[in-house]
């Protein structure tokens, strides 16, 4: 029996963004990472192309995050040194790139100086030759100072730096322009603000081909439904022709997962919910799997077992 023609006529392409620079390109990376370029939804290659696979960025921080022991032990003692942690992510966990979160800069925490943060960036760049994502501590004033120095310290490396937000984008835009980095456009789970940030970036002369969107991320079971739908709407809008939404998308799955009960509390606290050892990484991996279906291109992930599972899934999906 003949099937009806159900192909959608997507008319546009998600921007292709390349992160990292090799020696020939003025950096020191051993390879670059390219995301985006899709003209259809995940897996639907009968009506478009998906030239670049989603990638995993290993979560690394300048100071060990407040994480459960199951995760810290799975990473190992290297968690105490960002450079060694990054190296382990690449060499042992097999990630495609590194996300360096400078959470130690938080004024209400360790309050490390922008110069100290820049040293961390340099040490990580030296330790690994994969492309780098550099993110601040989520304190906007402090981040403006921190990202400025970190951007300069990684000049020429074509990093992905963030975040530019609706109310705080000028400095980040200026430094990414000056040092030729790519930028993360962040919005608080609001598709209209997401678009607005992109407009602001464009109006300030930043090339939207150098932007990755970050709609913020919710952990599985803690608002995933909202984020899933925003990623999916952004992606369909992008391939339908809205140039202001045609960017690759980032999800911070590791950063969100390891704060929620299901990834943190063991069986004595949650009787009948199974060993945390297994449940934690599974929580992270299932969350990542859902976001892959919604149109995520870069997944920031933390647990080596979750990373291994999602690497396998990405392989099976391509």
């Amino acid at each position, binding site marked *: *029996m*003949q*099937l*009806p023609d*159900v192909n959608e006529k997507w008319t546009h392409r998600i921007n292709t963004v390349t992160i990292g620079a090799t020696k020939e390109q003025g950096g020191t990376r051993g390879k670059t990472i390219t995301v985006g370029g899709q003209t259809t939804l*995940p*897996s*639907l*290659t*009968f009506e478009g192309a998906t030239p670049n696979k989603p990638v995993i960025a290993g979560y690394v921080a300048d100071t060990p995050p407040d994480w459960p022991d199951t995760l810290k032990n799975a990473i190992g003692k290297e968690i105490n040194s960002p450079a060694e942690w990054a190296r382990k992510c690449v060499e042992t966990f097999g990630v495609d790139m590194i996300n360096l979160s400078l959470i130690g800069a938080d004024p209400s925490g360790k309050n490390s100086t922008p110069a100290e943060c820049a040293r961390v960036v340099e040490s990580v760049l030296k330790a690994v030759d994969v492309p780098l994502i550099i993110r601040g501590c989520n304190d906007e004033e402090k981040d403006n100072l921190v990202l400025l120095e970190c951007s300069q310290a990684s000049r020429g490396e074509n990093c992905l730096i963030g975040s530019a937000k609706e109310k705080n984008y000028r400095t980040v835009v200026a430094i990414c322009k000056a040092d030729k980095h790519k930028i993360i456009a962040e919005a*608080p789970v609001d598709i209209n603000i997401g678009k607005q940030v992109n407009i602001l970036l464009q109006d300030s002369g930043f090339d939207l081909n150098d932007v990755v969107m970050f709609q913020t991320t919710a952990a*599985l*079971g*803690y*608002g*995933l*439904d*909202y984020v*899933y*739908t925003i990623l*999916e*709407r952004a992606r*369909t809008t992008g391939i339908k022709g809205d140039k202001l939404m045609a960017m690759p998308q980032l999800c911070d799955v590791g950063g969100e997962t390891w*704060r*929620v*009960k*299901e990834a*943190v*509390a063991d069986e004595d*606290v949650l009787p*009948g*919910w*199974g*060993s945390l050892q*297994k*449940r934690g*990484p*599974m*929580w992270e*991996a*299932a*969350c*990542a*799997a*859902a976001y*892959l*279906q*919604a149109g995520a291109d870069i997944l920031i992930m933390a647990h080596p*077992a979750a990373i*291994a*599972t*999602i690497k*396998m*899934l990405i392989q*099976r*999906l*391509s």
Partner: protein
Amino acid sequence: MAALTGMQIYKNLPRSNCKECGFPTCMAFAMQVAAKQKALGDCPRITDDAKNSLADASSPPMKLVTIGPEGKQFTFGQETVMFRHEERFHHATGVAVRIRGALTEMQVDELVAAINRADFMRAGEKLAVALCAVEVDGYADPAGRVQRIAQNCRVPLILMGDNPETLCATAQAIPGQRPLLCKATPANVEFLAKLAAGAKCALAIGAGTLEELADATQKAKANCVDDLVLAFSDKNTSETIRQLTIARRAAIKKNFRALGYPALVEVNADSPEAETVLAATFAAKYAGIVVINGHEPWELLPVLTTIQSIYTNPQVPNAVEAKLYAIGSVTENSPVIVTTNFSLTYFSVAGEVERSKIPCYISVVNTEGLGVLNSYAGDKISPEKVLKTLQEQKVAEHVKHRKLIIPGLLPIFKGELEDISEWKEVIIGPESASKIPAFLNSVWK
């Protein structure tokens, strides 16, 4: 139910304008039927063929299918959209745990017990395994095993096998249980359709291509089974997603009846971890049932929670009533906790309070279904609003003390609340609800 237009109805009428229905023209009558003012049967001249074709056209584009006997049923299908934001996904994906043929009787009993146990409360909803998928090929007494499982298992059964005779024998061994027969192929679909029709069972059909599958469903329908399920074995995950998508689009967007049935995916993985993420993937992309081997809580919970998230209704905020809740046997000395009326937030907090074993009052502020930071960012909660809520709920009449515990994410409320209210000791709680038990046990002495 897809509404019929006057034109669609008119085309199926005799178009003789005989006026026997009391209307001057067939068209006038058709308009009345479309407006649901008259029934088709009010035209004495309408043919059975026309009635059937209109019934078909007015039925939903994807069939609603029910598995299992009265009292333990699983219902799925009747989906209407490709993306949850277009409306909502209606019938949550059912997780079916497979009982492999190679298991011993003792292992089978253990697994059935595990399936019976596998239900979890999360955010005020019960999440549970929906079906038990029993392999019927490759061992001595499949009918005996199936009988035993049907008796002991809390969920309806899927009978999984390639041999139509065994499927037939096992289905007949459990009359009235209405298992899903899984699966027919284009080669044996007529045989199994007759069996399914006789036993009033739903039938799953698998085929190499969607075209063959469409042919096979029509053959089943011709043999009086319309409770059909499209079966996919996940040999190539991307290809399976493509097929699931095309089948659903054909049904929903093109009203292509031959594929207008819900789908079942047999997940095929070489590790429990792989199986879990694949099941989550298919829950998002159009499987009405996922069949897996995993039965451990750490495998099931992430999948069940993914399904819960994807199938929540995006049109309505998930909110609880904003009122004063008493958890446990409260007294006038019990702690008072403030939170928002987003279901997820309330149930996180209430669950942890229960776990602490310290009876508490929870005063829920109406934040229009937003969580803590969202209601703050969206101006739905403020110290004044908290105070007003406490007054409306007459909280001060329930307790002697004037201590108030506020969410750790809203520390700045402390000063103002203490200034403007009689609640003179405002205690900033932890940021995450999971730390509430430890917190209460150390602070509330």
